[in-house]
């Protein structure tokens, strides 16, 4: 009997549910309301804990997976996903520091380059045009036309 991915996920969710369930019992009750603020969360968390425990059980009782045919599954490019998340993370950090316009140019350019590296100078020019165009178009549409104030940079002042 071995534990699989679903079993581990179930265990993590079970642990989270139980910790929060204990917290929900410690919430103060209110004099005018017959049920306290922890009443509803306790129902949700009990349900989640029960379902997570069942998921662990289901995983433990599952037959060993058949490995044949695993090679037919399409190859996944997880490296690209990690890079994309990292670039989005940098964008979110840079937004309040360098402002929307500069951060957006850098973000769109960097993510495009990461997803499909330009090889010729023409491709680099297209990449730069899309980065500048996206930042300029979204700035003008949102700030000038729709009056949505976009982030200003603490370092750059614009």
């Amino acid at each position, binding site marked *: 009997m071995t534990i699989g991915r679903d079993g581990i996920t179930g265990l993590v969710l079970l642990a989270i549910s139980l910790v929060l369930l204990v917290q929900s019992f410690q919430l103060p009750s209110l004099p005018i309301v017959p049920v306290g603020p922890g009443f509803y969360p306790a129902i949700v968390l009990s349900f989640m804990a029960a379902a*997570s425990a069942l998921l662990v059980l289901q995983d433990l009782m599952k037959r060993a997976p058949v490995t044949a045919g695993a090679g037919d599954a399409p190859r996944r490019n997880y490296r690209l996903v990690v890079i994309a*998340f990292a670039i989005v993370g940098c964008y979110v950090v840079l937004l309040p520091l360098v402002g929307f316009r500069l951060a957006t140019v850098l973000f769109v350019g960097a993510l495009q380059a990461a997803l499909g590296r330009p090889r010729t100078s023409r491709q680099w020019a297209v990449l730069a045009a899309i980065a500048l165009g996206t930042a300029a178009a979204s700035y003008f549409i949102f700030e000038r036309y729709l009056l949505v104030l976009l982030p200003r940079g603490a370092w750059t002042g614009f």
Partner: protein
Amino acid sequence: MLDLLWHGLVNVAQWKYLVPLFAGTFIGVIGGSLPGVTITMTVIVVLPFTYGLDPLAGLAAMTGVYVGGSTGGLIACCLLGIPGSPASIATTFDGFPMARNGEPGRAIWLGVWASVWGGLLGALFLVFLTGPLAAIALEFGPWEYFSLFVLAMAMVAGLTESSLLKGLISTAIGLLITVVGHDPIGSVPRFTFGSEFIGGGFPFLPVLIGIFAFAQIMTDLEKLNGPRGQAVEPLVGIRLERFSHLKVNLEIFKQPVLLGWATVVGLIIGILPAIGGSASSVMAYDQAKKFSKTPERFGKGHPEGIIASEASNNANVSGSLMTIMAFGIPGDAVTAVMLGAMTIHGIQSGPLFISQNPDLAYGIYAAYILAHPCMLLICVALMPLMLRVTSVRMAVLAPVVLVLCVVGAYALNNTMQSVYVLLLFGVVGYALVKLGFPLAPLILGLILGDQIEINLVRAIMTDANPWLFMTRPISGGLLAAAVLSVALAIWQHLRHQSRVAEEEPDF
């Protein structure tokens, strides 16, 4: 009623509403025709543009996206053999074979016209049935509302393809997200761990955008630089053959029962909470095949398959709009975003929505009706562009969509906190998808969480007897239906497992 509808049509025909409606429909058609870009993602992209608009203009734009997206998906179906959006999935079965048989124009235009007629038939139901449905909903007390929400969640969790347990856990995660922050009755902070960041709870739209958009885009990026996984050559950049629009319409109207039935199937699936267009398109296709005199021609370029799929997915939009307007429950993720947009403008949807906001309600009906001629006009005028748009690279699309997601989150209250929530739930959404958890139940839990709690506490405050949930006829009936729905899902799952066990050799 008809004079209110006429007033709504005249109102939406003004430039200030017609331009957002037309623009939304155009973006919807383009978004729908891009493989990997769902209608939900398109409406998320359009969302920040609606913040600065009049509520009706914003909702008209979103209705346009919904109608346009439901049709746009068929172009990729017919030319690439993959659905542009999940709502068009069944169009692929006959649209692509017909296009490969040398009739791409007939395939696409059969789909476009079937969408128009299915959508307009759906509009009849939308206009005439939403009011009576809302009247039924007005009879509901907190017990009935609580039970209705439980039924909605049970149905969605039960319909998940992967695992019922994961569907239920996903629902619970959605509900759990809504309890973080101050409780709605006494404002006691819950699960905030003293943090100011989550003190006010997680704002709904950044969570929704993060979960849906990131899960979708990152899953698409995984497949980048890999094989397309297609056994046959796509038909990108081709020219459509000469054909007659009249002939295509006659072909559709020769099958009035098929058109009507596909519309009704789409409508019913749309009314049921959070099931979505893909189920309606597949179910209508399945029904068309069962009742057809020539079922053997399905899958080989049969026009009946295209008509059923496309009529139903556009009628599905009207069903979803009925649910949001009568009950305040989103019919699917697209209407969930619309519900969020309504909240931003301070509009409460639900049974009183039509009587309290008749201009807005009939404006939405009018926008839905007018979106169809707009969509037709866009398809006629811009078909050559749309034939090319299916080949736009993900490397260009992904950064632009992500920028609009960030703007959408930031512009909600002009703070970076919403952007951090967006990123946090982007990671959570992607992780859940990779672990095999369906997102639809989570989203429904997220939308209904507050309402479930408020109605539960309100019911207990009115009368502490918990048996009332079961003894009040409508509430009891809804709860029984919820139990039946879960039991049916378990039975189907067990039956499927035993079939698989019979087919698999025992090593």
